[in-house]
């Protein structure tokens, strides 16, 4: 750290970092600037499209196992000291801001509401809530006759939850009661005033509530990552390095083991050879020049909009409807969670800009309850909108502008905000397609995505009930005025995994049914989404797929018959110092 060199108070502010040719990932961690390692003509073992939540974990695992692997990332390789700021408006460039067209009866706002761009992907701007999915999530169709079943059970992913909770690591209570009860390796965080309000409201209504996590934010320093300083800018990316992102947790280890990241490189098409196997990817470099990287196996990890878009843009003879789309399900069953924000005004001061937005939640309403008129459920979580986001919420929730808006904003410090997180079921008419308009192309001339979204009856009932329950909790906490804004959070689906090639894009390891050496592994493979934030599950699925790839590497190369055997968990692939660090095992 360079604090002691500074003349400023506290040994900081941090001055402009020295130009020592090093790349900074947080205030303490420095790595040498990643260099190009492979040539386009080299046939690398794996190309990963998108170094985000899933891509970062895959890259690290495959490199550690000794493979030649290149991660392509459309956005930049962040130097967190130079590129990131503690500022709402100044963080706009963290998101996928390129054009997308949205429609349907309930259009999904994208951009800052949904997808990241740059190494780390969405894990750079996530709030880092890391609840696990519940066992029931994997068999929604069997239990409730709606949605879909997963091709795996909770038990298949459980060991990977345990690994990733240590690798991030996750802070939270020692006893987490919902789903399959479990504990967390790092201590829960102290409460901010929003968390206090959630606890007060829930407690008064007899609703169980988890305080201080689960959240992938350090409550104590570890290695070269400092602990949280409660500055509340998580969604603007954590300059402190306390909040986990694959950029700081997995990418450094990947590079150390020989992975290459080709940043500011947009993959435009996956090439299929005469034998029907993927041969590599076409991509545009930072100057807009087109290249072709050869590879033995391609993994697409571009998230729920860009993954289907790339597969659709890769249509070729034999795959006229898009790659891996013989089932016709590619781009269908896109999901977002109901993300209504419930805002409560208190007589006393709250100051919701302090503490991480994510610090308390309840999953008491997660499961299907036969006394309600809808299937599945929801969670209630803390959120912490900063001034611009809050102003837009006042506009939306109270219809305000002019003096009314100025008046509400002067009371910013009196408001607390809760987020509903409700399960919306997968529906065939919620889709990602290619836009067809003449102006609907990106700067490389590729058609952009057109995203269509519609709520169905079960979703509407769930939102109505969940919203009202959350408002009740806010009132019980002592709010004197409670309003809400309807919105959505988190995308998943649109390239779902399944048991049969007839109704899914890929198998339970993300291997596409149609092209033997083409995988999809990111949020888009999820058949349903529960009412847990998806990030932990996405990273855990990626670690599991890495184990599968490592076990089956030569079979995949030689075109041998597809194996659906569980690969067995490899516990030796975690980044250093993370495995077996202090998780309370509750069995």
């Amino acid at each position, binding site marked *: 750290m360079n604090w002691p060199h500074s003349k400023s108070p506290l040994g900081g502010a941090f001055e402009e970092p020295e130009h020592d040719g090093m790349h900074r990932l947080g205030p303490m961690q420095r790595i040498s600037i990643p260099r190009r390692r492979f040539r386009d003509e080299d046939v690398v073992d794996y190309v990963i499209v998108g170094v985000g939540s899933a891509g970062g974990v895959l890259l690290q695992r495959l490199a550690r196992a000794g493979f030649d692997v290149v991660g392509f990332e459309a956005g930049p390789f962040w130097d967190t*000291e130079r590129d990131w700021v503690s500022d709402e408006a100044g963080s706009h460039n963290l998101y996928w801001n390129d054009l997308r067209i949205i429609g349907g009866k309930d259009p999904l706002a994208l951009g800052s509401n949904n997808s990241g761009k740059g190494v780390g992907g969405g894990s750079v701007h996530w709030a880092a809530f890391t609840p696990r999915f519940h066992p029931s999530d994997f068999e929604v169709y069997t239990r409730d006759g709606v949605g879909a079943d997963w091709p795996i059970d909770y038990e298949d992913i459980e060991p990977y939850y345990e690994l990733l909770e240590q690798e991030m690591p996750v802070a939270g209570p020692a006893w987490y009661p919902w789903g399959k009860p479990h504990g967390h390796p790092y201590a829960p965080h102290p409460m901010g005033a929003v968390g206090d309000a959630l606890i007060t409201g829930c407690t008064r209504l007899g609703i169980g509530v988890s305080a201080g996590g689960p959240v992938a934010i350090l409550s104590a320093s570890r290695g070269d990552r400092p602990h949280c300083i409660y500055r509340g800018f998580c969604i603007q990316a954590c300059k402190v390095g306390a909040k986990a992102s694959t950029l700081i947790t997995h990418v450094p280890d990947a590079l150390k083991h020989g992975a290459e990241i080709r940043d500011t490189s947009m993959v435009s098409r996956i090439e299929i050879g005469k034998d029907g196997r993927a041969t590599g990817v076409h991509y545009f470099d930072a100057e807009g020049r087109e290249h072709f990287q050869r590879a033995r196996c391609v993994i697409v990890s571009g998230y729920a909009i860009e993954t289907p878009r790339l597969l659709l843009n890769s249509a070729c003879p034999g795959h006229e409807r898009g790659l891996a789309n013989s089932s016709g399900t590619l781009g269908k069953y896109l999901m977002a969670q109901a993300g209504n924000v419930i805002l409560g005004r208190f007589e006393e001061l709250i100051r919701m800009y302090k503490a991480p937005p994510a610090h308390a939640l309840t999953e008491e309403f997660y499961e299907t309850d036969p006394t309600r008129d809808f299937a599945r459920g929801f969670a209630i979580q803390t959120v912490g909108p900063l001034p611009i986001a809050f102003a837009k919420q006042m506009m939306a929730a109270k219809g305000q502008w002019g003096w009314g808006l100025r008046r509400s904003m*002067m009371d910013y410090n009196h408001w607390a905000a809760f987020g509903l997180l409700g399960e919306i079921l997968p529906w065939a008419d919620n889709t990602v397609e290619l836009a067809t308009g003449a102006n609907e192309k990106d700067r490389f001339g590729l058609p952009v995505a057109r995203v269509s979204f519609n709520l169905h009856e079960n979703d509407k009932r769930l939102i109505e009930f969940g919203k009202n329950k959350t408002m009740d909790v806010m009132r019980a906490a002592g709010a004197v005025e409670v309003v809400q804004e309807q919105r959505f*959070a988190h995308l998943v689906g649109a390239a779902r995994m399944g048991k049969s090639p007839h109704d899914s894009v890929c198998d339970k390891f993300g291997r596409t049914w149609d092209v033997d050496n083409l995988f999809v592994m990111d949020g888009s493979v999820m058949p349903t989404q529960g009412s847990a934030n998806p990030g932990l599950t996405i990273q855990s699925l990626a670690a599991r797929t890495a184990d599968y790839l490592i076990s089956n590497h030569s079979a995949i190369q030689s075109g041998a018959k597809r194996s659906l055997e569980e690969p067995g968990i490899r516990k030796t692939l975690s980044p250093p110092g993370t495995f077996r660090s202090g998780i309370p095992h509750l069995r």
Partner: protein
Amino acid sequence: MSENKSPLTDPRTGEALPQRVQPGYYPKWRVMREYRYWDAATRDVVTQRLEAPKPLRFFTAEEAGVMEAVLDRILPQDDRLPAQRIPLLPVLDTRLATNKLEGYRYEDMPPDQEAYRLAVRALDAMAQEIYGAPFISLTVTSQELLLKSLSEGHPAGAKELWSTLNVKRFWTLLVSDACAAYYAHPWAWDEIGFGGPAYPRGYMRLEAGRPEPWEFNEERYGWTAPADSISDYADPESGHTASAHGQAGTH
């Protein structure tokens, strides 16, 4: 800003309140005094906002006149001393000139640039149709009545022009852009008591809205909006329709 706008009044005495260097309930709070405690990158981004605004590149002089008047009503600043008013139009102009997008466009909306050009024309056409005068020469009340009709999605005039886009979505875009400019400014943070950037120092007093040693508690005062304004109202029913607006991420 025109001179003839009514100032705010004290609700108890009915007397005019003075214009302030800093409206809001934290008169002692100046976030910029803390800038030495911020990291260099953040300091640069925030201090740039205090520099003199750049000349307009997107809006023509005529369009700029209308937009200035509109933004004056969307986030009125008549309670601020003229030198302490936060520039909104230049921020919007830069966004449109550099094509800084939000990452999506509704299928029933043209690109943002076209939407703004059309809206300026439609606002003037509305003003002519209903009041027989250009938008900028209307009274505050008349301007606000026209704007309110947009906020409700039923423009009071120029219906043909407005029919080419989704008016409610345009309204949201407009108010969002105004908010993004105003509440990114350190003077607005002073006004609402927002602690601002906090790296590397961080916050320590998390509970019960307590101030850090460098923050302040509130000193509230009552104020009544100008008598000729209709914009001091709330309509909580409006939060029940999904995605009619731009949504910044929360969770």
